[in-house]
């Protein structure tokens, strides 16, 4: 379940639907849940994922060839939400595939498939706002992002429209590279906290047990995604799940 403010750090991880294959997605997700991950993003692969680094770009490229799509994502969601009721599944997608599907139908079908939240990086808060009553009625939390260069005025606007948690982009740039934690980062998180009581998820650059330790006590959620996809790509889903289990042990987050 999505944690409350000041609860213990939870790891959020990732599946690119169709990568390495649709069958393996199910197996990989079971492995993640068994390892102790209860927040999982299901990414709809897209031809032009502009906010992602090369790991996710290439995974999307491969996933499309393996049949990844909005429809495949909803089908996968229906299966995994039923199989793992203890976990929360978050649909992550760039806007165009959802727009082509039809946003209203997409939100309804996603809710019916058990999706609890949605991350759409290129759908700014202004575009989400008109959909809030619908999303609230369906019980889907729109997850909005804040970035280090954001103005206070805009954080306030995002905080007013966000549900579930706020995704704090840890540094300038795309997914999948190292971030330096420290005073500047702590001040940034503290600034966001003054605007919201929602839990905070830290993403972009969380790649090792040291990062998870550094974030313990600072945030409620750590998005451990690109590195996990690298494990999955290089060593297969079973091994990736084992490594995830070990990571949680090493970070003091298991159990």
């Amino acid at each position, binding site marked *: 379940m999505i944690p409350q403010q000041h609860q213990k750090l939870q790891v959020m991880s990732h599946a690119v639907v169709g990568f390495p294959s649709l069958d393996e997605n199910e197996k990989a997700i079971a492995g993640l849940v068994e390892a102790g991950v209860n927040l999982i993003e299901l990414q709809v692969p*897209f*031809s*032009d*994922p*502009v*906010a992602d*680094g*090369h790991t996710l*770009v*290439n995974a999307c*490229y491969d996933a*499309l060839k393996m049949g990844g*799509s*909005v*429809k495949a994502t909803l089908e996968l969601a229906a299966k995994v939400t039923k199989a793992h009721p203890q976990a929360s599944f978050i649909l992550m997608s*760039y*806007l*165009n*595939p*959802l*727009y*082509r*599907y039809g946003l209203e139908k997409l939100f309804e079908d996603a809710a019916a498939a058990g999706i609890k939240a949605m991350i759409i*990086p*290129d*759908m*700014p808060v202004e*575009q989400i706002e008109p959909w809030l009553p619908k999303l609230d009625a369906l019980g889907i939390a729109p997850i*909005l*992002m*804040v*970035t280090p*260069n*954001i*103005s206070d005025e*805009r954080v306030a606007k*995002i905080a007013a429209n966000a549900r579930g948690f706020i995704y704090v*982009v840890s540094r*300038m*740039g*795309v997914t999948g590279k190292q971030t330096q934690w420290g005073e500047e980062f702590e001040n940034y998180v503290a600034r966001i906290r003054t605007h919201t009581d929602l839990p905070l998820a830290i993403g972009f650059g969380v790649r090792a047990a040291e990062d998870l330790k550094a974030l313990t006590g600072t945030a409620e959620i750590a998005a451990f995604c690109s590195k996990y996809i690298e494990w999955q790509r290089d060593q297969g889903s079973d091994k990736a799940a084992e490594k995830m289990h070990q990571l949680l042990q090493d970070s003091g987050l298991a159990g």
Partner: protein
Amino acid sequence: MIRSDQGYFGEFGGRYVPEILLPALQELETMFNQLRDDPSFWQEYLSLCQEFSGRPTPLTPLRRLSKELGGAQIWLKREDLNHSGAHKVNNVLGQGLLVQRMGKKRVIAETGAGQHGLATAIMAARLGLQATIYMGADDIERQYSNVFWMRQLGAEVVGVETGARTLKEALDEALRDWAATVETTHYVLGTACGPAPFPELVTYFQSVISQEMKQQALEKIGRLPDEVVACVGGGSNAMGAFANFLEDDAVKLIGVEAGGRSFLPGEHSVRLLPDTGEDGIAQGYKTLFLQDDDGQLGDTHSIAAGLDYVGVSPILSHLSQTGRVIADSANDQEVVDAFKLLMKTEGIIPALESSHALAGGFKRAKQMSPDQHMVINLSGRGDKDIFNIAHAFPQPEWTEFLQREAARAQELENASKGEKS
């Protein structure tokens, strides 16, 4: 002139970008809005174009060709005579002045045919800025002469290996760079696409084309032309050629897209005609994209590297939908025929991109009468296309020349190694 309604042109346009890019776009918009209403800025821009790029470019009558086709009197607006050989430099010089005002020191750009990258590298050298140019790996192969020049000018050229390795991927990569460096870097977008305010901003700078065209037509023809024709890749030269005629309803505006090999998916780059582009939201804006039912952007083809973009200016999507701009297309063979015809009858070597406008224009001109006038925007010159043309019409003479040239280069390299050791 073109003014958006909060970034939208009808239903198209907008700003659909990851949160991280918003502050830079807002900063750019604020700066642009200040400068657009400042007549001294336009004068500064015009002076730079005149002193550095050779503006105004002439309006050239095609007397022999018009007679041969037996229809309208055809004129060319000679954007090929700009420094760097294409209209691209107009926009780039304008954005260079903006960069100076914003106090940034680095520019990035994406490029397809290489003309925009070359123009950006030229501008950066002239204004003392650091430049990084993203280019699809396949486009690098197709347009190596431009890559060579960009590097000589001091720009870093980065080959993009993801996806189909063309302009679409280069654009994604440039956006990723910008997300990481936005505080010090300006993204010199090359065409009238992308998130607001770029479509409007690029059109503003390119509108110098139709500003001159209008004045020159009044002087040389004594009235406005009956038709203005331009090729449409992203749409910047077309918007430049059309901008000052939008309210002159008697002037027909024709945009010619790349019909490629056929109308099958992946074989062309036609987005404005029925059953081709579908509305979508990607790469930061809403427009007509070539895409599948799942919203995945499609592959494209054109004989001209600069026309095979998967989206199109949201302004053109709107103008085409409202009927103000007439959409047309020319296939690869028609383009090559028009290219040859212009060279042989008028002694002008056009870019393959611009040859789409020629092909579309010549077809229409034949149906018009000799007292009518058509202006075709010749967006760029063709010498950069020498390798493509040589591939399209293989000649033993050319192959032999390349072999001799490669041998000479190898000899020089060996000699230089010998001297060093």
